[in-house]
């Protein structure tokens, strides 16, 4: 069984993001990383492989720099690496990306697909459902855990205010939330093996996909508004004010 994991390389969540001329300035991004929810998808795919067998196929669609992320995935245990190389991702809409990913999954023979619930850069959240739709697969979102059993897979997902266990059969797509498990770290042995792994680099044309025209245009990016300065409270008298602010303004209690 081949478990497909869809990975996206995004600016590291701790990297400084600059906007210039109404566009995120990619050349100024100091660090690119695997999108955090994708890390949980990869972790769960590796767990599934360990408990029930199979090969983990890591797939990304992105520019040349994204290849490094696949090697990182191999260092923690991904078996097969596929890179659909496209440039100018900015002018490609999510449906186009999804059709490319579905073709890659088909080529790799994956009927079970793991991905993040949304990418940390665009926060789009359409990849899982979109890929499932094109594959004719069921889609379970906000998943934190998947296990295999006779006839299919059981996924644990967050439902509003609680948890839900659902059972699906292949083909199926699981879009991951932050999982319960700690992510594994690479180690030297994994890095040595990863170095020897070949990344299969293909173009959309190689996969027989004609991308067509994008139907979405990003008009502009803008940075988030500056955070208001912090507020300071002192003394026992301020407890009530602080509690009400935490409850009503910060929504943390």
């Amino acid at each position: 069984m081949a478990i497909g994991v869809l990975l996206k390389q995004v600016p590291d969540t701790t990297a400084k993001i600059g906007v210039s001329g109404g566009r995120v300035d990619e050349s100024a991004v100091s660090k690119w990383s695997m999108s955090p929810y994708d890390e949980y998808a990869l972790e769960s795919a590796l767990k599934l492989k360990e408990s029930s067998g199979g090969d983990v196929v890591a797939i990304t669609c992105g520019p040349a720099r994204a290849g490094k992320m696949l090697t990182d995935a191999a260092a923690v245990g991904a078996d097969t690496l596929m890179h659909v190389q496209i440039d100018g991702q900015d002018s490609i809409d999510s449906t186009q990306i999804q059709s490319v990913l579905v073709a890659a999954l088909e080529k790799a023979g994956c009927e079970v697909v793991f991905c993040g619930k949304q990418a940390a850069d665009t926060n789009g959240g359409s990849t899982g459902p979109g890929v499932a739709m094109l594959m004719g697969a069921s889609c379970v979102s906000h998943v934190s855990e998947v296990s295999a059993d006779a006839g299919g897979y059981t996924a644990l997902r967050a439902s509003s205010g609680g948890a839900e266990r659902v059972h699906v059969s292949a083909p199926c797509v699981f879009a991951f939330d932050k999982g319960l498990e700690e992510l594994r770290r690479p180690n030297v042995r994994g890095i040595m093996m990863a170095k020897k792994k070949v990344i299969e680099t293909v173009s959309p044309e190689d996969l027989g996909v004609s991308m067509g025209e994008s139907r979405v245009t990003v008009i502009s990016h803008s940075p988030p508004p500056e955070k208001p300065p912090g507020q300071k409270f002192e003394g026992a008298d301020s407890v009530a004010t602080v509690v009400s602010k935490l409850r009503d303004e910060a929504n943390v209690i």
Partner: protein
Amino acid sequence: MAYEALDFYDIDALLTEEEKMVRDMVRDWVDKEVIPNIEQACHEGVFPDKWRVDLGEMGILGAPLKGYGCPGLSYIAYGLICQELERGDSGVRSFASVQGSLAMYPIWDFGSEEQKNHYLPRMASGELIGCFGLTEPDYGSNPGDMITRAEDKGDYYLLNGAKMWITNGTIADLAVVWAKLDGVIRGFIVEKDDSGFSAPEMTGKHSLKASVTSELVFQDCMIPKDRILPGVKGLKGPFSCLNNARFGISWGAVGAAQSCFNSTKEYALSRIQFGHPIASFQLVQNKLSWMLREITKAQLLAFHLGKKKDDGTWIPEHISLAKMNNVDIALEIARMSRDIHGANGILDEYPIMRHMANLESVKTYEGTHDIHNLILGKHITGIQSFTREP
């Protein structure tokens, strides 16, 4: 914010993909595990056991050694590991240096096949901790005059004497101890439960507080015959271990300096005095520029030395120069950083004072700054000046 390492001359471009991956793995670990916990570890004076487990799991202990379950990385990769660990704290790098270069290395190079198979895989995985006993209360820079003695009692060796300042001593499962057998320095593997052996911890340090430092005491300590390292006699044994550890230190010091530089740059840009960021004043810029200059030179020195270690064209004096220079500039940078941080520089909110205090030890251990000067002095002139005797 993501750590952005100072790399003015783009040494990154000279590294292999594997070296960068190993470096990034350790960098991430230091960011997630060391930096958030180091102040508490120092406060409590402990080396957290989780760090031992993690270092073993990452597979970086004994980095450049090949076979027997060891990683088999390049010396450059070993250097990068030390650099990242010491960016976190010199104590963490010390743990790794002692384990890899001072305890695993002598077994790997001078041990019997049985000793290698018995100890190395479990030391590489972090299951067993090693320490290295050379320094004695009365013999630091000239270990050749050590007092610790081993006697051949037919069925076993009897060890008597004491070692001091031994990193990892109290937490170690085994100690590589240098002692004189019939007047000749030999290496012995002492295990923690051997009779007549104890390793009390030394307390009261203002430096390397997250590293364990101990005495090793041997009172009629009986050790089996097969625990002598068969492959080496004389000072060459301990000195070849020191070469590898000193090499690692020359990289580690760069890490500590990078940490100070980053904190200082950020602080200088945000601290306003006389209506302007202090980074806008020429005197402060001069200091920042000096730091950049010295870190860049130290990086190039460490990198080139790494290449020489990897291709085997190095001599011990090359290592002396790099250890001496890089620790020296790192300590000076830490002091300058403390100055630029003003009063804040003494707080544990910033890494500065901790690096500064740590580097005082690093300047002294593994050959003091001036002992390395004497090594180079002898290399230049052909005249030894360690002792007055010819």
